[in-house]
């Protein structure tokens, strides 16, 4: 059967199975197994256990549970509350002020973590409850952080950039620098949209009092923010001071948070520690099971040569370079619906990059465009890891609500890609400046 047809069939089956309300991990896994048996025979089942295991059985996965734990520790302590109280007092005049500060926090966290679900989990755990407490609608609170969390793979360090660098033999250092300015641009775009949206809908979103806060009240709260700042500075130091690798940093950060919470907020009781650990366990089990299952799913798609065939047929088309870029973006967008970022990059980047370069596009610029496409994939169903992370954090908010909240930010990212097409220098300027022109 034609790989394109198989691909369409798998896509439809996935949507159908998941719409039954099956847990995403199990539904995805069963679709993968089903198609594997159908086309490769029963025999192919003999490696599924190892493939499933290998999907999460490597050290770089460690950062996900560790960052989730870090978020859980802070969220359960007054540290998070104090931080948001302070932000509230300072930003109460700004419509949507808290969303803006949360998006800023996502940007900072993205610089600590190479993974998007990890970024999303850490900020979401603290930020979403605080925003909702202050009257932000659930869709806005969850959607903005689902989107902000995707920055984890654009702002360095980034797991996907490393995978791209190896798959295409491009400089990982240059890729990291290339992602920095577009990352800041996306943060700004997200913030601009949030401001506009909050202003447009006339939300009374900030502060509980109409009178606002006196300068004294605003200054008074600042010392309470220090513990939180200490965590951020501490973790940044561990990472950029040469003490630990990105994966290890997450573990050290988690312990720092727990120690801080215990020492400063005197939360030393087995019950509260259990709450932190069990919350973190629930979310990390959920997300890692989905990642393991999507490894099976990617294995099936790769084994049946679906993704590669589509990328190949795009490569063989002879069209205008911008039409080509448009088609590639559309293709990446659709693959992003179904596959997690690393799988897409492994299967498509080596096929697409040569034609992209033939058409005169810069490989580092393309890496950024590809990464933003992958970010979109993280907040679109059926395989949108960040949506599920947020849903795990806020079980009382239904998935469609989160999806609708995140949708405008998809628009921001598409706009970001368009801006990058018009001004490619946004991606290439910084690496050229720091590492000399060319690659």
């Amino acid at each position: 059967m034609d790989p394109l047809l198989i691909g369409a069939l798998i896509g439809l089956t996935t949507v159908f199975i998941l719409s039954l309300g099956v847990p995403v991990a199990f539904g995805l896994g069963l679709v993968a197994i089903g198609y594997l048996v159908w086309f490769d025979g029963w025999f192919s089942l003999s490696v599924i256990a190892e493939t499933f295991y290998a999907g999460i059985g490597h050290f770089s996965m460690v950062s996900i549970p560790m960052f989730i734990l870090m978020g859980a520790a802070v969220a359960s302590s007054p540290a998070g509350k104090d931080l948001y109280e302070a932000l509230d007092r300072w930003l109460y005049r700004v419509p949507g002020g808290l969303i803006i500060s949360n998006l800023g926090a996502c940007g900072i966290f993205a610089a600590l973590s190479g993974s998007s679900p990890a970024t999303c989990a850490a900020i979401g755990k603290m930020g979403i409850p605080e925003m909702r407490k202050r009257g932000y609608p659930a869709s806005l609170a969850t959607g903005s952080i689902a989107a902000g969390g995707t920055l984890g793979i654009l702002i360095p360090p980034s797991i996907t950039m490393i995978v791209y660098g190896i798959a295409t033999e491009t400089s990982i250092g240059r890729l990291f620098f290339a992602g920095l300015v577009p990352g800041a641009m996306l943060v700004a775009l997200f913030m601009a949209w949030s401001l506009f949206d909050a202003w447009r809908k006339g939300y009374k979103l900030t502060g509980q009092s109409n009178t606002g806060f006196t300068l004294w009240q605003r200054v008074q709260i600042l010392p309470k923010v220090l513990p939180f700042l200490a965590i951020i500075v501490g973790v940044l130091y561990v990472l950029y001071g040469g003490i630990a690798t990105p994966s290890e940093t997450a573990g050290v950060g988690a312990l720092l948070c727990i120690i801080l919470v215990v020492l400063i907020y005197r939360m030393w009781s087995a019950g509260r520690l259990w709450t932190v650990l069990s919350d973190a366990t629930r979310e990390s089990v959920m997300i890692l099971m989905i990642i393991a299952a999507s490894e099976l799913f990617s294995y099936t798609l790769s084994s049946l040569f679906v993704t590669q065939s589509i990328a190949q047929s795009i490569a063989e088309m002879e069209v205008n370079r911008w039409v080509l870029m448009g088609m590639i973006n559309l293709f990446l967008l659709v693959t992003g619906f179904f596959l997690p970022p690393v799988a897409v990059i492994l299967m498509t980047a080596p096929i697409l990059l040569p034609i992209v370069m033939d058409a005169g596009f810069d490989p580092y610029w393309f890496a950024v465009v590809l990464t933003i496409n992958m970010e979109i994939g993280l907040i679109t169903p059926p395989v949108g890891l960040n949506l599920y992370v947020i849903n795990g954090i806020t079980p009382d908010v239904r998935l469609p609500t989160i999806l609708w909240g995140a949708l405008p930010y998809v628009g921001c990212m598409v706009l970001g890609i368009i801006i990058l097409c018009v001004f490619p220098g946004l991606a290439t300027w910084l690496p050229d400046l720091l590492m000399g022109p060319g690659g």
Partner: protein
Amino acid sequence: ADASARTLKASHQWPSGKGDLRDEMVQIIAREVAAADVGIDVRVYPGAQLFKPREQWNAIVKGVLDITAFPLDYASGQHPQFSATLMPGLVKNHDHAMRLNDSPFMDDIKAIINEAGVVVLADTWLAGGFAGKTDCIVAPEDVAGQTMRAAGPAFEEMLVGAGASIASMPSSEIYTALQTGVLDGANTSSGSFLSYRLYEQVSCLTPPGDYALWFMYEPILMSQRTWDSLTEDQQAAFMAAGEKAEAYAHEAAKAVDGKMVAAFEDAGVEIATMDEAQFRAWLAIADTTAYAGFADTVDGGRALLDKALAVD
């Protein structure tokens, strides 16, 4: 490829079409077998698109995967004897590696491979070296007190013996670890030094020369299950293709080292060389660490090492 041809899956972990030696070997086999017109179409899955690097072994043993370019040491968890194919100083240079291929040592290794249900289509040994973030690493004393990342447990043991501290991390993190200073140096294959662009992060490279410590056996393998299902014509086509790939690899393996040196020189990295005395000093440490550990824990380990060391 004609439509009625049977498709075999070939997998490896390196980038495709970038001149990587192992990719090129697999592509040569695919091209040659297609040209032989025996009704076989080899589909290559490069860049770990199908299986993670280490998972390729069990896949090929079971016959779910047909062909792979596989660093044999990756399967040393299943067959501890395979560690001997990534043992410090056992292979001194590329010509020595060629002589080793036809020795009783490799006969023993291949017997284990065959017994596991795997056929060797082509042999290759690839070299590697050391790189330091601030200093050159040539003699054992150069690594004392330094944090290193080594490719292979035997090398880790030897480096610890020389007074280094080992940080184990996935190879994808070497770049960042050198950049931030978590690592002072790394030991890996010439190909990895190139594809991870470590020349951006180090100041001195010790490439493999007349005396190289790091050699790894990375053969092209076929599943016995697949092999048995082939006709005699098809088997002959694969054997012929394997020989072509092997001949190519022997020349190309030296070229990889040259390419690496050129890339590092272009990046302004100092190039250091290891002399015989320094090589012997490393061997003395390896003898009490990696070799001793291997001889103690692996069935027939001492005999295997002696057979390898006997090859002149």
